[in-house]
């Protein structure tokens, strides 16, 4: 974990009207690690993630990618930079098929003149989607099924798969196992490990402390819109994490 962090947030401030969702938040993600981002409801985790993925422009602060300051003016910028996100609300189009969702915004067009007028190569996308899901161990009846006909867990698996498939540097997962049963949760956690083994970094938001301690290399804790504590997962206990989330314990200097 030497060198510049792959992704770093410094002193991010984000206000919604009078509410300051983030008041100087930091987050550090090193190359090839799984960072768990935890905090009580409303601590600002999802907001920080949306800032990092280009959904919200920050009011103040800096995002650094591989040591260089970047300004994401849209989610596309973040994705081009290799940062993929599974949002807490999933952001899937329910009426579209699994394949269409996996390729949303990056559809494959046909070759030749038909492609130039914008016609889609649906078969290539179906095949690509089926292969990707298979590889990731996500089981879906068919890639032509509309998302609305999937179970909550399958839906979440598709969203995770979409991020993992396209990411090159960082995958951000905002509560990716919230709706999942035991088996599906296992699969997602295995996927997280595989992503790390492939050399990417993962930011994992979760409320499940044992899960956090199991898969994460490091844990960063947010409270009231700031980072209040950092732990190496191997050295922390659930009690430490809870203490940090409630404000009883801080490891960061808060100015």
């Amino acid at each position, binding site marked *: 974990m030497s060198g510049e962090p792959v992704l770093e947030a410094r002193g991010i401030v984000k206000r919604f009207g009078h509410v300051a969702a983030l008041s100087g938040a930091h987050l550090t993600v090193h190359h090839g690690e799984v960072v768990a981002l935890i905090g009580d409801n409303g601590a600002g985790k999802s907001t920080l993630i949306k800032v990092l993925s280009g959904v919200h422009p920050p009011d103040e602060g800096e995002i650094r990618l591989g040591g260089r300051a970047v300004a994401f003016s849209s989610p596309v910028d973040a994705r081009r930079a290799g940062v993929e996100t599974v949002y807490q609300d999933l952001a899937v*189009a329910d009426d579209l098929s699994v394949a269409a969702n996996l390729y949303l915004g990056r559809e494959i067009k046909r070759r030749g003149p038909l492609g130039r007028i*914008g016609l889609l190569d649906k078969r290539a996308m179906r095949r690509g989607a089926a292969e990707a899901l298979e590889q990731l161990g996500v089981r879906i009846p068919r890639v032509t099924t509309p998302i609305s006909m999937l*179970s909550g867990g399958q839906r979440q698996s598709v969203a995770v798969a979409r991020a993992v498939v396209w990411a090159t540097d960082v995958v951000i997962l905002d509560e990716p196992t919230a709706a999942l*049963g035991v088996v599906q949760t296992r699969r997602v956690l295995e996927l997280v490990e595989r992503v790390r083994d492939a050399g990417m970094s993962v930011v994992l938001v979760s409320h499940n402390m044992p899960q956090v301690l199991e898969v994460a290399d490091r844990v960063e804790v947010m409270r009231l819109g700031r980072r209040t504590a950092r732990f190496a997962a191997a050295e922390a206990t659930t009690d430490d994490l809870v203490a940090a989330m409630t404000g009883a314990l801080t490891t960061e200097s808060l100015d």
Partner: protein
Amino acid sequence: MATVDQAVGWRGRLEEWLRERISVAVSEVTAATALAVLFIALSLASPYFLTADNLFNIGSQTAVIAIIAVAQTMVIITKGIDLSVGSVAALAGVAGAMVVRDLGFSVWEASAVAVAVGAAAGLVNGLLVSFARLPPFIATLGMMSAGRGLVFIVTGAVGVYSLPESFQLLGNGVIAGVPFTIVVTAAVALAVGGLLSQSRFGQHVYAMGSNLEAARRSGIPVRRNLTAVYVLAGMLVGLGGVIAASRVNSGQPNYGIGLELDVIAAAVIGGASLFGGQGRIVGTLIGAFLIALVRNGSVLLGINIHYQQLIVGLIIWAAVYFDQFRRRRLESRG
């Protein structure tokens, strides 16, 4: 965990596949059945129904409703609604008639003018919806009123008459025994159907209606696309308007009052969902045909126009209720 495992085998998968297909096409199948029943009933009820004249008449009546309903379908898929179609069709029809009468334009040139007028109105709708962020209902309600006002102003509230016979070609002409209107409708349906189902733009239109925020986060230029949908819809409404004018060889400022209800009904009957993200051109064509038959049948059977309105109202309620019911059932599975 509700995945279908290998163990379930091909039978299970076939069943699942069928269930999926049926649920996608259920509105279309229902509408087609209703259409067939109505068609047979009318053939039995009225000796005049199956005559060539009447079928031709139904054909061109369906054409105008269908073209404008196709426009409405595109807007409905984006989770919008276009209440201005009647006014814009009148405006475009009158504009087409006026350039023929006053400037000696041909019927084709007049059609181009009408389409351009429709596009302009659509552009205003589109900008109001996507950039001024007015709800589509309000944006197009304003256009409904403004458009109607404008058409009365430019005509002085009198129809545009004394047009040459040639202006009728579009609405009443025949090519190789097929009404010209049917050819135009088929071309429009194929083009828009292809655009929606096969193109990237179409894919994005469904995505925007299904989950606008997800579409935005996927990098889809939602405002530009939304504007484009309203412009395209406006062009089709303009085309429908000039066909309607051509059919009666005049520009009527009060044409299309209440037309929005017919075309919304057509789209919804065919499976377009007012909740966005769903709707297919095949369904809309069936719906348009059904509405045209209701209108035509009512005339043949001497049913008063007010009852027709009542029937269309009931149909809208039934279709939307059905859609909502279907959605709720799907959600409860989730």
